[in-house]
């Protein structure tokens, strides 16, 4: 096994592979961090979730709620696979537990897709909501739709995702974050997974230029702050 890898190494992965899975992610990260911070500092007013519930209330429920719960669960799943790959592999060592986690992921994926389709249909058909739809909203929705469909496709065709993500993709992502990029493992993956990875990069790259920035300003401090906020000009918010 070791020798096999050794012999494969001199031939090396294709340059296109390095470009897509080493160069691109660093460019994406640079754009993501620099532009997000720039926007937060210079265009703070534009940080908003741009809720359109005020304009349309009913359909919004069937879009926004499943979409958000679904995508939160899926992102959390990806994040856990990235942060504690060994833990995931340990969990998956018992087949029953593997089926539970894969089944749950699939269900959340379907919930997410249903929510997203509802959001897209709503945005396309409701004249009021269409009036507050920007070009970037369309780009984001199309991109997210492709990404969710792609993710479901991967889940259904390349089993068992939770295990191979922890075994193959987590080390790849860690290699990026530790500045020792190694995309050789990714090169062996089927095209559907590669597209899903590239889709993620596209979303991260466009992130600072879209309404998605509202993810970064989720109101976590509300849970422990006092109800009332009193601001003093002079006393620099000493009381309450």
């Amino acid at each position: 096994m070791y020798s096999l890898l050794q012999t494969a190494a001199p031939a090396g992965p294709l340059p296109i592979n390095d470009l897509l899975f080493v160069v691109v992610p660093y460019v994406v990260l640079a754009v993501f961090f620099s532009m997000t911070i720039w926007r937060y500092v210079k265009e703070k007013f534009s940080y908003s979730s741009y809720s359109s519930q005020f304009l349309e209330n009913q359909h919004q429920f069937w879009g926004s709620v499943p979409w958000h719960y679904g995508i939160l669960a899926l992102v959390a799943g990806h994040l856990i696979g990235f942060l504690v790959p060994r833990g995931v592999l340990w969990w998956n060592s018992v087949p029953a537990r593997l089926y539970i986690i894969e089944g749950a992921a699939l269900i959340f994926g379907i919930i997410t897709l249903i929510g997203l389709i509802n959001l897209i249909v709503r945005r396309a058909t409701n004249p009021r909501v269409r009036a507050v739809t920007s070009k970037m909203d369309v780009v984001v929705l199309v991109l997210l739709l492709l990404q969710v469909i792609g993710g479901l496709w991967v889940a259904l065709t390349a089993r068992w995702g939770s295990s191979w993500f922890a075994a193959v993709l987590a080390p790849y992502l860690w290699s990026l974050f530790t500045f020792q990029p190694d995309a050789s493992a990714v090169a062996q993956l089927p095209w559907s997974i590669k597209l899903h990875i590239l889709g993620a990069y596209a979303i991260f790259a466009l992130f600072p230029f879209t309404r998605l920035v509202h993810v970064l300003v989720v109101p976590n401090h509300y849970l422990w702050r006092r109800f009332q906020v009193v601001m003093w000009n002079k006393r620099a918010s000493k009381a309450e």
Partner: protein
Amino acid sequence: MNVRAQVSMVFHLDKCIGCHTCSIACKNIWTDRKGTEYMWFNNVETKPGTGYPTQWEDQSKYRGGWEVKGDRLRLKSTGKGRIITNIFHNPHLPTMDDYYEPWTYKYEDLFNAPAGTDQPTALPISKVTGEYIDIESGPNWDDDLGGSNIYAANDPNLKDVSEEQRQQLQAVERLVFFYFPRICNHCLNPACVASCPSGALYKRGEDGIVLINQKRCRAWRSCVAACPYKKTYYNWSTGKSEKCLLCYPRLETGQAPACFHSCVGRIRYLGLLLYDADRIDEIAKLPPEKLVEGQRDLILDPNDPNVIAAARKAGMPEQVIEFAQRSPVYQFVKVWKIALPPHIEYRTLPMLYYVPPLLPVLGSTANQVYENGVDAKAIFHAFDQQRVPMGYLASLFSVGDEAKIRYVLRKLVAVRTFKRAETVGDIPMAVALEALKLADTTEAEVEDIYRMTSLPTFAQRFVIPPMHREEAIEAFKDPQDHKREVGFGFTASPKRGL
């Protein structure tokens, strides 16, 4: 004792003529932008009526304000736990249909129409979508009881009024209404501030004005649902909520807010109230029948040496204390006790008070003629035959306690009786003096009320304290440096982002 100052207001409903000048003054200054067309920081409702947004007082629908759970207050709409479930879809958020879809007219059709035999018309188009719309509602759709069989009949305040009285309200010869102008109450226990997940809403410590930081607002919409008076509005274009700012830029330069300044009926009074901030929570939790008295207790006497000492200790400028002593609002609320808070059962402790209307009350007497009464008791007798049922006013201003409304109306009648006895003379002075006694008032107080309600000057109605904003900057740096550094402050354009 934690003494704070609050810029407070009194609206004298007897004097409101329903001209909407206040609304227009406000709209022209603050809400004539895209996304704000439907916002009326100041609006004037006809009561009985469903108000704006429709049925805003029906908290079983909108879930605004606070409720007491066990020994603590909690928001009816959202709270720390429920914000997680409500943030993606707020079940209590009013939608544009609860207000109205703003519109304009296609005026170009008037010019571009081909020559013909009939007049060209400008059809209404939505200001949101730009498409033709059927206008189904507007900001004053039920003005002057228009469509009262739909609107006035569904006023949530009529729930305490008997069926018979409701029928009478609908009878043509007994039709009655009064105007109810509303702005943000700049509450002491604001539900909007407490509900904001981003902490974008805040109450200014120095003057108690409640504001929304436009750069921190993230369109979570909690404030719109939480405010029981529905005085925060969601800007559908910029994705930010906006609300009445009590024209603080005007106040800081010594001018009355636009709606106050422009008021034709001169119904509005503005001045400081001092209150004990340590007791807000305790008062807001009182049982409903004690809320009105409780809030009055919360307000401190600006002439009390203890209060003055505590205010100085809290760092309140000397001038602010002086202005609090001259406040007309203090007289109305605490001394004369004739101004009551609207719907204090929402427990936000509103700091806009109303003098309940008397005119429709006196408009009906037993014999279809004005009877000034041979004895003092007869003067007050008319209250129970008034056209606006007591229960209705009590539902608006005193959590259903008719005695509190009677107290105010008695005093208002006593003022008129006494002044009539004094100036016209067709009521014996003995009767008038007896009326004063029954109304729990004195000649001196009646004279004061008369002067403040009938003859006040601009400076007496609006006692605007110096805001000391220059000192606020001085505390940190040279004001000239500050000005050079920040220029005009908010320089990013308040446009919808990507």
